[in-house]
């Protein structure tokens, strides 16, 4: 692309280009991502992302769940291949074909979930992956580990079993493993998520010593404080796109609070060229209207992997759009499922038009007019291998007129499915096409048609535009506005603050399974919601 003459000069030119254009410093980039795009069925996980990784720097990748951090790491560590764009290692375009290949290129990854064998000792774990025909070189390993741990100031007992170590120690072993294999670039994926505060500080100090020795570190997190405390450079990802970068010069110039506020601006702020940005027209709701959906003190016990819910209460009046904002994974999905009846609650009441719904089954709640549009379109919303026509009626199996005495009425089903396809503009080759073959936007239209068609009174949307392209995002938002205008109560759960600000009448913020505050969507709502989201009072 940069030069037509030959391959060698092309890569040379590339190296010079990147050195000169991106990094004025003398250190060359170890790895450069050049407009990398990765798509999954129905979702653009990374959209033309540029990234330059330099030795001697902790490069923080910041973003919410679903922002595309894991996909980016997957491509760097050889688990996935980009669909578009290229990865340059030492200035040369290099497809990273496998994790083994990544290691041989000097890219070591410490994944979020520990990848050690708990029943083996530290030494055995470090020796895994050697040639099977050779005796493990234990003495050599011990010498190397002693040397590395001396310079880093950590102590590791090579003969301890992994299961006896704390999570922080296990993580050190994983880092050590990457170093023993001569990694020049160390990727730490959400490494602090399982550590104690003390462990987090230790990890920070360790990272500092590592970069001082000339390593490059990519540190992935969704916690703003850690990013500001440990980073030299911060790249912010949002919905698969890189929305901003704070270079080291700027980083040093700012205090921690200023950096955090700048990040918040990048993560949740509005960009002037953003085509999604549109002002919400102020709406006047009859203040006297009785609430349509009343939720009081919903409780759900937490499990090992999911947060619980405590004392969730809110009202939604007819025609009102209530938004739920918050960092992903703070109980949004549990809230939606508890309301829909998929998740058993341990307390609280739900009433629709004054009629109690708690205690009713999923089907009965739907029958009463409470609809739930899931964010997991293929995982639970549809049966991918079933035709589009059947997926419209997945929640009505056995109901007239589509089934009579339990027998399928194919003509009725096809007739109504045809109407819905036209009405909701579902682009499908035919009604018989398996729904899994459609694009994410069209699957979403199938779900919209299913949940909004006849009898809906209150609708829960969970991340309705997640992973959709712009056109479908706008179309979906338009649908949601229309049903609110029709007088339905709408609960809009979203991690996209922009979306909530452009649509909702009120925005509540969820954190660790409770609603920490509710804000009227007027003038300064953006800052007030932003403050609530990072744990400050509005």
């Amino acid at each position, binding site marked *: 692309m940069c030069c037509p003459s030959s391959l060698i000069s092309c890569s040379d030119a590339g190296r010079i280009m990147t050195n000169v254009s991106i990094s004025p410093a003398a250190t060359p980039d170890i790895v450069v991502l050049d407009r990398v795009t990765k798509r999954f069925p129905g979702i653009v996980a990374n959209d033309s992302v540029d990234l330059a990784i330099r030795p001697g720097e902790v490069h923080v990748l910041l973003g919410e769940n679903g922002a595309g951090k894991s996909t980016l790491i997957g491509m760097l560590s050889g688990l996935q291949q980009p669909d578009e764009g290229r990865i340059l290692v030492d200035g040369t375009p290099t497809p990273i074909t496998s994790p083994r290949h990544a290691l041989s290129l000097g890219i070591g990854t410490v994944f979020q979930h520990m990848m050690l064998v708990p029943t083996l000792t530290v030494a055995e774990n470090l020796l895994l992956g050697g040639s099977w025909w050779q005796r493990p070189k234990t003495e050599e390993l011990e010498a190397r580990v002693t040397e590395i741990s001396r310079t880093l100031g950590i102590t590791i007992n090579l003969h301890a079993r992994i299961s006896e170590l704390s999570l922080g120690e296990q993580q050190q072993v994983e880092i050590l493993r990457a170093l023993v294999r001569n990694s020049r670039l160390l990727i730490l994926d959400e490494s602090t998520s399982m550590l104690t505060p003390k462990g987090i500080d230790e990890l920070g100090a360790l990272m500092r010593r590592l970069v001082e020795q000339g390593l490059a570190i990519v540190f992935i997190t969704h916690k703003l404080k850690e990013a500001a405390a440990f980073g030299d450079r911060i790249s912010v990802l949002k919905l698969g796109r890189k929305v901003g970068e704070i270079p080291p010069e700027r980083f040093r110039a700012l205090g921690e609070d200023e950096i955090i506020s700048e990040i918040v601006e990048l993560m949740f702020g509005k960009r002037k060229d953003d085509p999604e940005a549109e002002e919400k027209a102020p709406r006047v709701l009859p203040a006297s209207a009785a609430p349509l959906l009343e939720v009081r003190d919903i409780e759900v016990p937490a499990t090992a992997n999911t947060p619980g819910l405590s004392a969730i209460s809110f009202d939604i009046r007819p025609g009102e759009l209530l938004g739920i904002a918050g960092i992903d994974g703070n109980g949004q999905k549990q809230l939606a499922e508890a309301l829909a*009846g*998929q998740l058993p609650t341990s307390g609280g009441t739900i009433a629709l038009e004054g009629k109690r719904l708690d205690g009713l*089954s*999923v*089907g009965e709640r*739907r029958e009463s007019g409470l609809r*739930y549009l*899931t964010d*997991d379109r293929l*995982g*639970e*919303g*549809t*049966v*991918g*291998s*079933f035709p589009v026509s*059947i997926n419209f009626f*997945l*929640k009505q*199996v*056995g109901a007239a007129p589509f*089934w009579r005495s*339990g*027998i*399928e009425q194919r003509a009725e089903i096809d007739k109504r499915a045809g109407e819905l396809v036209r009405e909701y503009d579902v682009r499908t*080759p035919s009604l018989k096409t398996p729904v899994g*073959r459609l694009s994410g936007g069209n699957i979403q239209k199938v779900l919209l048609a299913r949940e909004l068609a006849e009898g809906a009174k209150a609708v829960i949307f969970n991340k309705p535009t997640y992973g959709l392209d712009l056109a479908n995002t706008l179309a979906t938002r338009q649908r949601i506005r229309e049903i609110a205008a029709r007088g339905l109560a709408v609960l809009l759960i979203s991690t996209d603050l922009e979306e909530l600000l452009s649509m909702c009448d009120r925005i509540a913020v969820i954190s660790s399974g409770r609603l920490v505050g509710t804000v009227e969507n007027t003038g300064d709502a953006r800052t007030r919601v932003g403050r609530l989201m990072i744990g400050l009072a509005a």
Partner: protein
Amino acid sequence: MSATALDTSNGTPARRDIQRRIIMTLGPILAALIIAGCILLAVGVNPLTYYGFVLERGLLSPLGVQQTLTRMAPLLFLAAGLIVAFRAGMWNLGGDGQFLLGAVTAAASGPLLVQVLPAWLALFCAFLLATAIAMLWSLVPALLRAYQGVNEIITTLMMTFLGTSLANVLVKLVFLDPSTTVPQTRTLPVEDRLPRLFDTTITSGLLLGLAAILIVHFVMTRTAFGLKLQIVGANPRAAVHAGLGVPKLTIAVFAISAGLAGLAGAVDIIGVQGNVRADWNPAYAMAVIPVVFLARMNGIAAIGFVFMLSVLSIGGESAARRLGVPHHFTLVLVSIVLIMLALAEYIDHRYNQSRKA
């Protein structure tokens, strides 16, 4: 992308599709016959002689074809039961235990009931009892799967060991016929068994089996109940999301599947065998599993494949006596066919992928 792919494809896609399907089915079968032939050569049997003999005894001789059709009766019931379970994503591998318990129940109750009830009612009651016992037997894995999420592959397999042993114990200790020296249950008189079709030796159980598998096919493809089961099988999370009562459906699936296996046992006893001998275990259910996969869990296609299995097993049993090839070789042959079909599928998939790329 998909639009252009459609445009560039041949103008008569339907015909090409059928052609491809035929090649994809016959090719692997032919390859399997060749590989099995090599195994036969290795054990010193001329494969052509063997195949010819199997065909002649299983299909072409009048007696052979009657035996083949008779053998189909229990196999069809078993296939029907497996189709229900597999389509709902539940791997009931306990068919043999359920089959034997159904058979023993029928053998124990049949001869007693015909003495007090009209023959047709007696047989009907024996069928019902056999079904009920097999259903009860499936309750343990069903409840474990429905409410505890215990893998039913393990539990049904383990239950089949218990079931075959229990059936044996019942034959030897409880229902033993005191009037013979052979350890077996009392024998149902030939005139009280299911009538034979026309002037042949074919049992009318064949018609019952055909009816069973056709009904199952209809229920699974055209009714709300069948669709619910298919949703559970294809995407259990979607089933929960859609508000289906997954635990109850699970229990229903196990009951139907096991009930049909029990019926298979009953139809073999009441129609053909007349009694259960000690240590009798034809292991039909295990043989039917690959057949159901070959038919891709389609009831109509399963009839054809069950017929093929029947021919192979009747012919194989004769060949075992004449040529000294163990009758288990039938299963070897069926398994090789299955592996070849899977391989063909894989290669076809890879080919399509590379063509798209």
